């Protein structure tokens, strides 16, 4: 059965490298930061997890434990990294592709007008 396992591991390596290629290609083609984070934070990490599973299948037990640990760590921390970068972009007022800046304005301005209009409609 080790021949089947070897071919399965090779297939997983090819799949992992293909998914990472799609991630880099997606990063290259996306117009703004918030879309690039989809490619860099999700797709590349999932390709990497596939590569780690391919390694865990075909290496000795202590190495397989380390590979699974690295994969679990990546699955837990990649969304946190992407969220931190997105939050840094919102705080730095990075515009989206359509030109508008996400996040609400600081105190004053349109939020006060909106609450005044809502109170007027309620009465």
């Amino acid at each position, binding site marked *: 059965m080790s021949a089947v396992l070897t071919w399965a591991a090779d297939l997983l390596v090819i799949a992992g490298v293909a998914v990472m290629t799609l991630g880099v290609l997606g990063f290259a083609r996306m117009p703004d930061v918030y879309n690039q984070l989809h490619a*860099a934070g999700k797709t590349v990490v999932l390709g990497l997890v596939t590569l780690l599973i391919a390694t865990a299948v075909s290496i000795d037990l202590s190495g397989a434990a380390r590979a699974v640990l690295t994969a679990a760590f990546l699955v837990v921390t990649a969304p946190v990294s*992407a969220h931190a970068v997105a939050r840094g972009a919102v705080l*730095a007022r990075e515009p989206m592709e359509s030109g508008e800046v996400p996040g609400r304005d600081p105190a004053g301005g349109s939020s006060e007008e909106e609450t005044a209009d809502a109170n007027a409609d309620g009465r």
Partner: protein
Amino acid sequence: MHDAILYAAIVWTTLLLGAAVLLLLRPRSQPGRIAALDMITLILVALLVIFAKLTDESYYLDAALALALLNFIATLAFARFSGRGRLFS
């Protein structure tokens, strides 16, 4: 034959690394560059993992885990600095 696939994967991942570095040098926004740095480090981790599978030595996976940890911390630090102008306020 079995090693040829892994050698091809290493060559292709090195080409991906070159492409990612070019994407970093492309003049886009600063948070875009932080995301590109994150991606470069993940491609380096992938190189280490393929090499671990190629040579059947498990200590390359230790290096991969350490690089993934450092990537996480560095991305958080860069993003925090980019968002608020300093790290600890």
